[in-house]
């Protein structure tokens, strides 16, 4: 059903298609050995125009664990991009060699330009401060496996909600489930962008509140999604320094949270979650990272039309 499609933003797949993919990811987690030759002879291109260790490794590990192979670049200066090649031309060329491509780009909408230029499936692995749909697959799979579903949950998103593309994608994806509420916790300067507030939350009549106080919000939440204040998104370093430590989750603050609340983070973490929180069974961010590889395996198989 997903064969040949692109994944540019979370709404590209229906809820049913997502559920099928999560079911496949669950099967892979249960018995990874069964899938070691699923992508034999297939080639994934990773086009990373800005640094990323986690997402790129996660995709590469996913493809290699399926028996496929990987080509690509992680530094645009080492590719024809440095010669001024357009995104459209790069992807058309890559499509001559690979079966699908993963793109991370600092400009918002770059993977869409790529997808419009080729029949080969294109996966958005993060575009500027805009979207990060495969992180969302990771987040959703983790929520599904720990809370058994998405309906009637209250999700707190904390930190950099302006440039935090993982938050934009997560809100978009969760907006389709029943009675999901959001508590958006950020400093004034890093509030959620208008298009998320108007086009997703308000348009769909989703209950949400925007607050400053982390402590007040914590007891209400079933999921706390922490994000890093991203230095690389700021034009002015002074603003970054002023805002970077606004919210820090530590052991004492965890006491305010529900017993079953889970803490997610797309990683990398800087200091927004104290290391002492890692021991708390509610801290799910490293489990989340592992789930990310499994769900990317399921995604690659689905886009290549390989039966799971």
């Amino acid at each position, binding site marked *: 059903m997903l064969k040949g499609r692109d994944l540019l933003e979370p709404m590209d797949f229906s809820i049913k298609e997502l559920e099928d993919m999560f079911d496949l990811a669950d099967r892979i987690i249960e018995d990874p050995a069964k899938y070691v030759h699923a992508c034999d002879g297939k080639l994934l291109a990773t086009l990373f125009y800005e640094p990323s260790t986690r997402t790129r490794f996660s995709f590469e590990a996913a493809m290699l664990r399926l028996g496929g192979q990987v080509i690509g670049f992680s530094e645009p200066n080492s590719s024809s991009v440095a010669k001024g090649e*357009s*995104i*459209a031309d790069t992807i058309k060329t890559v499509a001559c060699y690979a079966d699908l491509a993963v793109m991370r780009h600092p*400009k*918002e909408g*770059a993977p869409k330009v790529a997808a419009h230029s080729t029949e080969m499936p294109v996966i958005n692995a993060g575009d500027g*401060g*805009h979207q990060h749909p495969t992180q969302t697959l990771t987040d959703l799979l983790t929520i599904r496996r720990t809370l058994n579903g998405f309906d009637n949950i209250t999700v707190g998103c904390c930190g950099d909600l302006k440039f935090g593309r993982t938050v934009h994608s997560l809100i978009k994806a969760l907006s389709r489930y029943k009675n999901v509420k959001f508590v958006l916790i950020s400093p004034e300067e890093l509030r959620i962008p208008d298009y998320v507030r108007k086009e997703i939350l308000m348009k769909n009549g989703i209950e949400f509140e925007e607050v400053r106080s982390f402590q007040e919000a914590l007891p209400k939440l079933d999921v706390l999604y922490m994000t890093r204040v991203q230095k690389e998104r700021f034009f002015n370093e002074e603003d970054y320094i002023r805002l970077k430590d606004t919210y820090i989750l530590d052991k004492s603050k965890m006491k305010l949270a529900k017993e079953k609340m889970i803490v997610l983070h797309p990683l990398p973490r800087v200091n927004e979650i104290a290391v002492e929180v890692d021991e708390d069974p509610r801290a799910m961010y490293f489990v989340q990272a592992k789930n990310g590889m499994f769900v990317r395996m399921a995604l690659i198989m689905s886009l290549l039309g390989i039966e799971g």
Partner: protein
Amino acid sequence: MLVNSIEKGIVIDHITAGLGAKILEYLDIDLANNTVAFIMNASSKKHGKKDIVKIQNVIDVNLDVLGLIEPNATVNIIENGQIIKKIELQVPERVTNVIKCKNPRCVTSVEINAPHIFHLIDAENREYRCEYCDEIVCMKGDY
């Protein structure tokens, strides 16, 4: 002030005073080779003041541009000195290569061949969303 009628062409009437220049800018009419009359601040029974644009020998203008900037204007097509057609403008659902995304992080700022596509999200406020970066622009404002 007297401006002669045109034999053939287009008259865009009832333009909100002050928007006429913007319409001319966006319509991409070759001002060097067409006869264009641009009347500013003409008296209007309805609105007090209005702008009017008359373009001789041109009847094929981009109606999406007009609907985008001034959906309340009236468009009259003139043949043999008579109005042969009045066009009611619509706020367009999608516009391509009319407005440019101002978000410096948008891919259209670097990918020169990518068309600038905007989708209508709120007709009343004429708000549009960029196809690529989702940036919202309001055409009612000073865009």
